[in-house]
């Protein structure tokens, strides 16, 4: 019951006129950003975060949270109409969404995607409301060793579940952590890693510089290069009758929606997994569960419903560890977490005690954002179809300019803008060689916490690494983390041993 009271207070915050306006603005911005091929929630949040300095932190996160949701809805639009995922999170939606559009059932696919997103979002926010307070309570007992163990677990998920090239993933984590060490040493206050004695390095490397560099400049360079071909927009006539009929037909797809929602939520909580693998897994499970799996890939509504409910649920799931533990569950929440630090809020369990209005305002706004995203999405489908025809030669320069002024604003130092350009170009060049970049962004955000927790732990234990294994909670988390780190190794050994046994 206590939760209900807190949630009501949260709604009082979320429904303040300015916040309500920001929810609507965030949903619209998110829908547009999600609908544009190549741009997803992470790009939107990275590029627009500096613009939120205008409003108080609670309003800022409400706006960015709504944008996150909107982008999850919007991603489906270009997946269905263009056959190009609007964001990586909507890849699975193309499998059946595009065939539906080609069969002239684009309106049904769009309505199914929007409704599934709504169901996934709503179920996951309810789960979030129930899970967050107890988890935060539990986390209050954590000391530096537990914190460090959790961070190890977060990084270990990238190795064990990320599916990318392993040495390159490790490299990405290390380089992100190393960049976070630039500036002044947290203990002695001595200058550290001041490259070429440039004064700009004394204030450290702001995580936004890396995030905007990679997700703004690097990604746009990548998108401009990969989408050079012509795109074909499917035609969709959306009528009120069609929408009503499509909604009524969706009663056959409730099972897939529920499955996608629960699966997506729990996958979303894991740091490396997030919405993209969550939606792909939901698609796979839906097909396996189906009585006629051969219809998948040829325009089965379940194939749109399952991944779309999962990616929205996962986006909520990824906020759970961000708010309760201070460990982001996805690249987008990593940037939100960095934003919270800029706004002077310390993420983690204390947030639930010291900044109740912030936490519950955000949770309540997620309920509201979900509803608005659904309504705006269905009402303005034609407007979003126009976005898909917007040429990149208009979009790219506008985004580049937003990146440059956005990179300048937090520190007001041109040094950071140059650094951002270098990160963007290097990020683009490395991405072409399959270096995963999300771990680096996560690492630069978590770096200061990682260093502080490991150094405090070692001081507590007089230099013995045993401390991480002597305390029960930290030992369990560490054991899981080590298991995940070792997982690829175990697979390699099994591959080597396997054929021998078959002989």
């Amino acid at each position, binding site marked *: 019951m206590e939760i209900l009271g807190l949630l009501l207070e949260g709604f009082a915050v979320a429904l303040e006129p300015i916040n309500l306006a920001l929810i609507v603005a965030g949903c619209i911005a998110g829908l547009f950003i999600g609908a544009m091929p190549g741009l997803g929630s992470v790009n939107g949040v990275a590029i627009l975060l500096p*613009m939120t*300095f*205008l409003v108080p932190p609670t309003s800022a996160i409400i706006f960015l949270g709504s944008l996150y949701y909107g982008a999850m809805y919007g991603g489906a639009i270009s997946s269905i109409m263009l056959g190009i995922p609007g964001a990586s999170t909507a890849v699975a939606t193309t499998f059946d969404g595009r065939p539906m559009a080609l069969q002239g059932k684009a309106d049904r696919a769009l309505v199914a995607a929007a409704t599934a997103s709504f169901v996934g979002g709503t179920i996951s926010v309810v789960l979030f409301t129930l899970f967050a307070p107890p988890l935060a309570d539990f986390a209050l007992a954590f000391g530096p060793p537990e914190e460090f163990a959790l961070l190890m677990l977060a990084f270990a998920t990238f190795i064990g579940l990320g599916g990318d*090239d392993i*040495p*390159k993933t*490790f*490299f990405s984590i*290390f*380089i992100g*952590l*190393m960049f976070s*060490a630039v500036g002044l*040493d947290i*203990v*002695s206050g*001595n200058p*550290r*890693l001041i*490259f070429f004695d440039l004064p700009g390095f004394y204030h450290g490397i702001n995580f936004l510089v890396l995030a905007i560099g990679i997700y703004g*400049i690097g990604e*746009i*360079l990548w998108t*401009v*290069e990969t989408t*050079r071909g012509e795109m074909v927009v499917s035609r969709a006539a959306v009528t009120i009758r069609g929408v009503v009929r499509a909604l009524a037909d969706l009663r056959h797809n409730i099972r897939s929606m529920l499955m996608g929602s629960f699966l997506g939520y729990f996958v979303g909580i894991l740091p490396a997994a997030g919405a993209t693998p969550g939606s792909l897994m939901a698609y796979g499970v839906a097909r396996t569960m189906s009585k006629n799996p051969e219809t998948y890939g040829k325009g089965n509504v379940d194939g749109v419903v399952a991944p779309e409910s999962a990616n929205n649920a996962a986006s909520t799931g990824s906020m759970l560890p961000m708010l309760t533990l201070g460990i982001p569950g996805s690249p987008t929440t990593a940037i939100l977490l960095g934003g919270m630090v800029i706004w002077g809020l310390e993420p983690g369990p204390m947030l639930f005690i010291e900044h109740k209005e912030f936490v519950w305002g955000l949770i309540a706004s997620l309920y509201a954002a979900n509803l608005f995203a659904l309504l705006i999405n269905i009402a303005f489908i034609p407007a979003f179809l126009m976005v898909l025809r917007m*040429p990149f*030669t*208009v979009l*790219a*320069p*506008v985004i*580049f*300019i937003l990146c*440059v*002024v956005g990179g*300048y*604003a937090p520190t*007001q130092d*041109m040094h950071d*803008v*140059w650094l951002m*350009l270098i990160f*963007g*170009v290097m990020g*683009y*060049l*490395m991405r*072409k*060689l*399959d*270096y995963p970049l999300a771990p680096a962004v996560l690492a630069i955000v978590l770096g200061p916490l990682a*260093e502080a927790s*490991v*150094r405090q732990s*070692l*001081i507590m234990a007089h*230099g013995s690494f045993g401390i991480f294994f002597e305390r029960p909670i930290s030992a369990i988390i560490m054991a899981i983390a080590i298991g995940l780190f070792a997982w690829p190794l175990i697979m390699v050994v099994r591959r080597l041993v396997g054929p021998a046994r078959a002989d």
Partner: protein
Amino acid sequence: MRRAELVMALVMAAFSLYIMWKSTELPVGWIEGEGPGGGAFPFWLAAGMLVCCGWIVLRWARRQSPPSRSEEPYMDRTALRVFAIGAGSLLAMIGLIHIVGVYVVIPLYLIFYMRGIGHHAWSVTAPLALAMPVAAFLFFEIALKITLPKGYTEPAFYPLYEMLL
């Protein structure tokens, strides 16, 4: 692609070595009563980066990673052209900000990109090129009180400040 994979790994290995050397400006060992020295954290991270580069090179030699097997060029002509335009124009834009400031560069950049590369009509380009610097000014200078760099055009803004602030 194969050559690019090796070159990237070697460049990053050299970078790791540089960071390791740079970290030793602060003590990297254990300081009695204080815990690990200030340089220890980045030193061992850079050491980790170096190990990863070695691992990447090893996989390259055994042709285990996809880029090390790929026969495709790292950048074909179109990719190179697109990259040169994108990165080059950004370089020029940021460089020019130091000289003529943000508010002159924004319209110039939009005109260059939309007219020069996109071949859009003036009717599309001009409104955007005019609206964007005005919006940026209102948003940053007036609402957020963040002054964007103006280079030599700074004095031109004094009357505006007096009027609006």
